[in-house]
């Protein structure tokens, strides 16, 4: 983060609680506590554990988490499945966003995640990777169709598509993210800069939008 000039970041596990690591939430909470003011936490939760999934999400908010992360390729839970929608709505009651992995795989395409956005209009739905390599145009179209959808820039390789997204849906619904440590934050920052946004728009994408979303969590 220091190398890339990043003051604050959002972190999460790569596993879906309670699977694999029953102490996943505590692991993240402890990591954030070690770097006060610099890290915020999202809870990555498997939707298929019924009441246990909901209990974990509430526990996460009790620990100060700021959002829900879902990875349908990992969990095989469809974005618009009832188990998933229940978690999204529970997060939205806290004013918290749901970040989806949104790429080229089945269960994670923009049109699939868009169904969740349509079913949960009060929830902020973030399309991580904004559609990956092949589905970026569809991600922008889904964001045009649903005001509660936000596009997140990590990993997808097209700076020009960041500029196009800002043009079509407005700078207030496009977010920088690194996907680190998988991606280099330095390169991901450079990608946004290469989009050539106006200074006001770039400031929103790099920070102000994320702060607005994070500060809205209660």
């Amino acid at each position, binding site marked *: 983060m220091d190398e890339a000039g990043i003051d604050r970041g959002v972190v999460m596990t790569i596993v879906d609680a309670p699977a694999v690591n029953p102490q996943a939430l505590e692991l993240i909470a402890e990591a954030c506590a070690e770097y006060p003011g610099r890290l915020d936490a999202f809870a990555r939760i498997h939707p298929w554990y019924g009441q246990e999934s909901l209990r974990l999400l509430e526990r996460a908010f009790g620990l100060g988490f700021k959002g829900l992360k879902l990875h349908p390729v990992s969990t095989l839970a469809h974005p618009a499945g009832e188990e998933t929608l229940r978690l999204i709505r529970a997060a939205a009651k806290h004013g918290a966003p749901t970040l989806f992995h949104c790429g080229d795989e089945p269960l994670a395409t923009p049109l699939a995640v868009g169904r969740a956005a349509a079913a949960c209009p009060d929830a902020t739905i973030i399309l991580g990777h904004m559609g990956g390599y092949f589905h970026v145009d569809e991600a922008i179209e889904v964001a045009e169709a649903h005001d509660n959808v936000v596009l997140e820039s990590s990993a997808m390789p*097209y700076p020009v598509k960041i500029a196009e997204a800002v043009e079509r849906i407005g700078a207030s619904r496009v977010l920088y993210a690194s996907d680190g440590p998988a991606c280099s934050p330095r390169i991901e920052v450079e990608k946004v800069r290469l989009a050539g946004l106006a200074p006001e728009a770039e400031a929103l994408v790099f920070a102000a939008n994320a702060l607005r979303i994070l500060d809205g969590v209660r």
Partner: protein
Amino acid sequence: MDELGVDKAVVCPAKPRAYHLGAANEAIAEIVADSGGRLSGVARVDPLLGDDACAELERAVETLGLRALFLHPWEETFRIADRRVDPIVEVAQRLGVPVIVAAGYPFVSEALQVGALARRFPDVTFVATNGLQLNISGLGQVDSELALADSENLLLQTSGVYREDFIEGVVRRFGARRVLYASSYPLLDPRLEIRRVQWAAFSEPEVEAILGGNARAVFSLDGD
């Protein structure tokens, strides 16, 4: 190229609107001829055209002076491991030119499919685009490394590989000789793509090899 300090580039036909790859190969040859030695060209053929494809590759290399064969299984709609690809690779082998494969496309040019072809032709150099895999979850990386482990004659390009740790891992495990910088321009942005190499954890000799030395060797650019 000037903005990024790129001296030479290898160019290939995009999918022509007229679907006539022969004319596209001729256009590439003309661009190369007008480039003052800064561009080298690659011939694109559709291997499903059989003997016509083989004749076109011979013409492109021997008459037009192009330096490699480019296969795009996604846009020409064939599996790279299909045995019907073998005759065109046999021509490439006889002509002594490398084969570039548009790699990472689902169903047609997945890493192990490209690897299967490379194993059938151990004396041909294969260069796979996109790090042998196009998956935003990184799900293709293990297969890519398995394919590289199987075939010394299989190299990969860095274009569009969002995981810098993957590229670094390939260099550590297989050596810098196996990795070539590529921009995939105009699909991708060279200003970003070159950073994937420049900002990775490589030694100076490794960067030199990846940004130029390997391409000079594979595409025989030193005589230009």
